[in-house]
């Protein structure tokens, strides 16, 4: 059984339909790249997975559990959604780090707040918080940022900020980590360091959904690729096959623009 099952998602913004009958599956430990031009609906799809947008139709299942079903309005309440969204982590294009917290605090804040809901929080507060801190340090080390723990976001480069954001998303141990054009706000120089980190996560079999414009990266790192256009999935399949030998004209057209560069 696939870890993530997305079935017939539809989404409108007013009269504009931005997602049309979007269905796909993703196996545990695989990386899925979503490619397509701006306005093709890829970011909206990612935002639907993270409950930042509510689909008008369709279902989202993780490990067999239905997290979203458009037919069941009760499941849309905020309290119901809050815990479900923890199955997903999201890394934003513009990082969205909390500016008033240090790198380490950014990574540990949500974990510390969630820990308060644990039954054993009062009894084991010190130990729980120490564990969260230790885990946060470990994640920053994994991102190559051990020497930046106490830095505030504005003291970090874009690439460093995005790596902190990745550590922050990993801290809650999501089943599926999503990336929304993680390098689009970065200089080419800084893009590499972020892509290296994502590649390392792929090597560790982290289940990921990556919206990206980096075709070579998608081809080399992702297992599956989805090409979207006009809110539709035009083509999906193994990454190398879709990017090197696309079957659809529309995909070929899109990819040829990258080949020229």
């Amino acid at each position, binding site marked *: 059984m696939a870890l993530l099952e997305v079935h017939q998602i539809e989404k409108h913004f007013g009269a504009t339909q931005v997602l049309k009958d979007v269905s796909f599956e993703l196996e545990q430990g695989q990386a899925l790249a979503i490619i397509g031009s701006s306005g093709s609906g890829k970011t909206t799809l990612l935002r639907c997975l993270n409950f930042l947008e509510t689909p008008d139709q369709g279902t989202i299942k993780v490990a067999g559990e239905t997290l979203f079903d458009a037919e069941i309005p009760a499941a849309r309440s905020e309290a119901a959604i809050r*815990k479900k969204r923890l199955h997903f982590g999201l890394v934003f294009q513009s990082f969205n*780090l909390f500016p008033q917290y240090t790198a380490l605090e950014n990574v540990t804040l949500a974990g510390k707040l969630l820990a308060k809901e644990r039954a054993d929080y009062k009894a084991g507060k010190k130990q729980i918080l120490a564990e969260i801190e230790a885990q946060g340090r470990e994640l920053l080390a994994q991102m190559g940022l051990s020497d930046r723990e106490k830095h505030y976001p504005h003291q970090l480069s874009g690439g460093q900020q995005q790596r902190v954001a990745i550590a922050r*998303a990993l801290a809650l141990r999501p089943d599926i980590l999503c990336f929304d054009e993680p390098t689009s706000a970065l200089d080419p120089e800084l893009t590499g360091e972020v892509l290296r980190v994502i590649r390392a996560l792929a090597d560790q079999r982290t289940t990921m959904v990556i919206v990206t414009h980096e075709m070579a990266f998608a081809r080399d790192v992702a297992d599956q690729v989805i090409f979207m256009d006009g809110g539709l999935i035009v083509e999906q399949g193994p990454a190398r096959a879709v990017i090197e030998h696309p079957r659809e004209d529309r995909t070929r057209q899109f990819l040829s623009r990258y080949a020229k560069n």
Partner: protein
Amino acid sequence: MFFASAEFQTVFAALNTGFVRTLKLFFITLAGAIPLGLVISFGSMSRFPPLRWLTRLVIWAVRGTPLVLQIIALYYVPPLMKLFSWGSGESGRFTAVAVAFVLNYACYFSEIYRGGIQGVPAGQQEAGLVLGMTRRQIFFQVTLLQMIKRIVPPMSNEIITLVKDTSLARVIALQEIIWMGESFLKGNQGYAGLVWPLFFTAVYYLAFSGLTTILLNRLEKKLEFFR
């Protein structure tokens, strides 16, 4: 030496008494309007349209009419309509004035807060949501400090205006510092026709707004640790 003269001592004591009332009104207004403004700003941003419209209507009415008119209305109308009375004498007048000031300033503050909150990028809220935070946690842990940083300069303006606006309380005979200064022109404690006490009140205002400016600048500096 003039500052040792009986005239100066008498005037000085009277002005001090008036200024204490001014300060009392100032601090009570801040203590009431700072939190009330936050409640009003939430109302004006509510996702429930009727509440949003009602709040914005109130803000419009309060900001659209002179404070002096609000003080007079609040002081005289309830007793005239036999709703309730503010109580007699100085304390009754003070209560009415304080209520008018808190309401008036809360409306101004609420708009500053709204600007501050809406100025925090939507991505901050989204980052919090994705991390499983509740809306309350996002407001207090993420938005609030960023909002405070944004609103310090416009709040400084309002706070300094407030120090001076307290003089409007004299319209219902609250004996704040300007009233006291003027009293020596009209006749008070055997002195009449003195012009200088009225002008001397400026020293109090200048000293106080100077101090306020220093404190708010310090707060602004303190919040420079992030951007």
